[in-house]
């Protein structure tokens, strides 16, 4: 069996404290759910960075296990044995939309865009994707089975995604014409993950002040009116008592589960210069969500297709997309693009490191052993807008692939990689996305 649910996982999912669990433990439906599932968790996170890469400083020249890491991939050095590069995987989808639009819109969906009215730099205008994306496809499968169901099923993280819903800013789709907006505000993500618990704490923190307030006003009303106020105050005291008990139980459960509610730095605004900090905050929340088993599927979208972050922290003033159009002969731009992509790789390495440092809750090894990061991009190369050789770098053991190797598939449609991924997650499919690109089945040589 693929999945195993430990007692602690089960407690977390059911949202009950150990104390409460003692009481419900004898219910047959609960005991059987906890006792019969025996498999490890598999997690998957897709990380997006935009505008293509610099192939010469990205792809290893040596294939197989003896591959070398070029400049851009250097930050992953520590994870060399746990990573895989896949050259020759191409996004071959045609139809409406410019290169960037089809690049991002077909990346996880493997299917064309609808005709529409969004005009890119070239080609015909287009709308949203005509199909579901692989992350949502997997979420639906996992959520359909009580053994793999989680609180959210999937989480969609973003970093500095423009406040504009269009083909260039969305890559995850719940279905045809159903783009999913990523949450790019860490405080909003925190609210989604821990809002209820946070609010309970807030309430406890203000109840004392409230009681004092009641005593103050009670003094100035008639005896008849005081009755209502006393009743109200008494109720507040009861609420306080119950909340304290809840919080105690909650703390006990979360310490038993090995994860505490993370603490975010305060007052970080959505601004270009805060990209590094926001990325960290979001990644920390992602790791926490995995540890708490809030989800097993995530997407992590850094900016957007045609994204224009200005990486001043790397002393680069120009926007990324603008630079990506410069010819290879522009040495200055070329160097900057290498730096930019290296920075993206550092983020992936940070995520890998956080997962690697965290022991797998209720399992063996680290969380990285049970998670695969799929780092990708909408283009193979920025100035040509090619969707051949889409950057695919995999880190971690979630999919059970044979890591520590560099592969080249020549020129295969990326739908086949999507098929490999769904198969590795335990849901083999004949096709995913446009069936025309699936005739040869999943890629071989990955396992």
């Amino acid at each position, binding site marked *: 069996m693929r999945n195993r649910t430990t007692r602690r996982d089960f407690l977390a999912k059911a949202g009950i404290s150990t104390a409460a669990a003692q009481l419900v433990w004898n219910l047959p439906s609960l005991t059987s759910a906890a006792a019969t599932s025996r498999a490890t968790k598999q997690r998957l996170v897709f990380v997006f960075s935009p505008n293509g890469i610099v192939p010469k400083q990205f792809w290893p020249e040596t294939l197989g296990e003896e591959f070398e890491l070029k400049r851009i991939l250097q930050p992953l050095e520590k994870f060399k044995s746990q990573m895989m590069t896949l050259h020759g995987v191409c996004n071959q989808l045609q139809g*409406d939309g410019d290169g960037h639009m089809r690049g991002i819109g077909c990346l996880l969906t493997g299917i064309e*865009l*609808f*005709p*529409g*009215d*969004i*005009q890119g730099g070239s080609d*015909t*205008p*287009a*709308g*949203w994707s*005509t199909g579901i994306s692989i992350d949502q496809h997997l979420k639906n499968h996992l959520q359909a089975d009580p053994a793999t169901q989680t609180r959210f099923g999937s989480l969609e993280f973003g970093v500095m995604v423009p406040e*504009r*819903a*269009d*083909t260039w800013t969305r890559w995850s789709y719940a279905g*045809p*014409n159903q783009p999913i907006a990523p949450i790019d505000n860490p*405080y909003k993500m925190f*609210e989604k993950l821990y809002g209820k618990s946070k*609010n309970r704490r*807030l*309430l406890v*923190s*203000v109840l004392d*002040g*409230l009681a*004092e*307030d*009641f005593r103050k*006003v009670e003094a*100035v*009303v*008639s005896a*008849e*009116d005081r009755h*209502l*106020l006393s*009743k*109200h105050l008494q*109720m*507040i005291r*009861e*609420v306080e008592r119950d909340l304290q008990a809840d919080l105690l139980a909650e703390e006990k459960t979360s310490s038993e589960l090995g994860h505490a509610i993370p603490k975010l730095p*305060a*007052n970080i605004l959505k601004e270009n210069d805060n990209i590094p900090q926001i990325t960290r905050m979001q990644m920390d929340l992602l790791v926490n969500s995995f540890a708490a088993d809030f989800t097993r599927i995530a997407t992590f979208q850094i900016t957007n297709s045609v994204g224009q972050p200005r990486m001043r922290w790397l002393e680069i003033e120009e926007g990324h997309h603008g630079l990506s159009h410069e010819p290879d002969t522009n040495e200055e731009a070329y160097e900057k693009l290498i730096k930019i992509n290296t920075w993206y790789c550092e983020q992936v390495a940070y995520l890998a490191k956080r997962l690697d440092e965290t022991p797998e809750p209720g399992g063996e090894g680290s969380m990285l052993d049970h998670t695969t990061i799929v780092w990708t991009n909408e283009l193979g190369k920025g100035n040509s807008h090619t969707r051949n050789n889409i950057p695919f770098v995999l880190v971690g053991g979630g999919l059970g692939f044979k890591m520590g190797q560099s592969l080249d598939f020549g020129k295969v449609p990326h739908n086949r990689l999507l098929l490999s991924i769904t198969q590795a997650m335990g849901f083999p499919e004949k096709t995913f996305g446009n069936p025309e690109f699936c005739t040869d089945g999943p890629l071989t040589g990955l396992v």
Partner: protein
Amino acid sequence: MPEALPTARRLTIFAAIVACFGLSMGTARGAELSLHGKAIYEKQCAMCHGENGVGVEDYFPDPLRGDLSISNLAEMIADTMPEDDPEACLGKDSLAVATYLHETFYRKPLPKSLRPQRVSLARLTKTQLRQSLADLYAYQGNTIPLAHAQGLKAMYFDGSKHKDGNLRIERVDAVLDFDFGHKGPGKKIDPQDFFIQWQGAIQADSTGPHEIVIRSSCAFVCYFGSYQRQFIDNHVQSGARTEFRRSLVLTAGRIYPLRIDFFQRKRKTEQPPAKISLSWKPPRGVEQIIPSRNLLKVEAPAAFSLQTHLPPDDRSYGYERGISVDRQWDESTTEAALEFAQVAADELWPLHQQKNRNKADRDRAQLRLFLSEIIATAFRGPLDEHDQKTYVDDPVDATEDDLEAILRSLLLTLKSPRFLYPGLDTDRSSSQRAASRLALTLFDSLPTDTWLFLQARGGELAEETQIRAAAERMLDDHRARNKVRELFHGWLNIENQIEITKNEEHFKDFNAELLADLRFSLETFIEEIVWSKSSDYRQLFLADWTLTTDRLANFYGDTWLPKAANTRGLQPSAGDPGKRFGVLTHPYLMSRMAYHTNTSPIHRGVFLTRYLLGRMLRPPQEAFAPIAAELHPDLTTRQRVVLQTGGRNCQVCHKRINGLGLTLENFDAVGRYRIVEREHPVDASGSYTTRDRKQIDFAGPEDLAELLAYGEDAHRTFIQRAFHHLVKQPVAAYGPDTMTYLLASFEQSNYNLRELFVEIAVIAASDSQKRVSNEQGDSDEK
């Protein structure tokens, strides 16, 4: 003191019928009788009614008070009492008990402990909490001047951008329901490349979840609640997706900014024809294109509508009162407070920062200022040192995270008794108290309007004339208009929109659309009367015109044709003297109070007795199904009703019910005027015995309309309802003669409704006891 008694639920049996004649008797004989009556009362009645008629919790808890004459009371006792053996107290005995009751407590005010006579402390009701939070969001005092709904402002541009030079059409669109096809919206506009912006506001009629539905073949972005808040983002036209729905809870009477940017973009590929419509599905309503009466072309400030569900309030006194607290309510106020605090952190705080970006911000001074402004608004007055520390400084100093500080501070504020109990205002200045009470009375909300805020702060609401002027001004506000609208809904018992279906064979074309027109006609008719210059209550019953539409004229005939030819929408009809009497005979009410095919004089009679004349009725002893018309094909409705309710027990109440209800027999089951029923001429005669025991006979609806227009019973009832609805406290709580005073001033003003509302607001808002002196020596507890 019937106005001091609970009205809706508690029906005092002894008040169930009305006297026709007083009984005269010698004093000595009276005393003897009374003594005899006392003995019987103590033996047979006190067990259930308690000593001195105070009531007994387990048997008959309501105090034994009423307005029947001795003879009528005696008649009822003989007929119905004691309940387990009505034969045990007859004739002289019943007269003796009635005499005893009359001479002792029956007509007297209740003992103080039993009288809901004081202004009791109450928490905000759910409506008040919802409305208060909506105004707290607008703590900066932005309000919308009263405006007539008529549609949205529209700007049509050539080219798919908002570019001044390309503006081709500027107009008001009454509704949004367009099919421009491939031809485009007008001259000099490229049909393949254009942009339309609709801007204005939506006003909600009711509180609850509204589903907004936009159908569009092109790209559009809809902003709702604020011109910056994206509500539906269809910036991308994609495939064949054309329907977009989203629900949210709106608050009755509130105005929400709305903007739709609509793009037909030129493209290399095939273009769909351009179409757009804006619909909604209001709570309990059907989906419809949002009518122009809910669309305003005004520029509206950003608005907040609470999404949290709040549990219903106590209505045992016939109107909502915040007189109890429980866990469910407490949890809902926590949720509401958090919802508001989150929106304040997300929207109001950045606005404050933006506005004050050049000002000093040492030690988070701006955050403190922001919070104190909101909290002072919530607490209806400035913060003292202690408040500043508890509500602002402590939460801010507790965390370096601004957003958390806002949540903490506002959660504490909105859970505080200072916010939840508006009556805790003894430490406020009299002007501040007046402002806050006026806002609560007329808006169910907080005093946030800039002018009101300034007057309260400047001590300019201390005098009655100042309060009166403020109340008059406040009536010209959407919030007051909405509250008054709801008053009339309650008075006419049409708060709930119910489905009304009729026999299709008899009443072809009586359908949902017709019904919607009827309701709209009735509601607008009331508004026209109330907000007209004379604001004459009597016209509600005497007006011989109504408001009509083409559909209504088609169904109800020529007397429903608009007065002016060639007009569209809802229009005044010509008069129909002798056959139309304002709300009384309005087909919306007549159809509601009728069966599928036949009228229901009993429903109509009960409505008239309870709602318009304020008399108490006990519920029927058991449930009766009406006699089916088919069983007596020769009988008229009147004859059938008389047949069914002729029993002695029934007549106790039905004498009154039928006397009123049968007067409307000229109006059939859909409210069409008729003079013949089943080949018999309609007999619309009836009668009514007033509270002061005068019998009035009616020849037909005209006499009834006059009774309602001029009679004191109807005035008293309306005033009491208005008072309860606006103030949510008993009338007598403001002094035992308050009702007498209001009745007199209503008469003096020629029954001016506006002035009545102002008068009520002034009473509720004033500290001074300008009203008639308090004979019982009650002190105002407040």
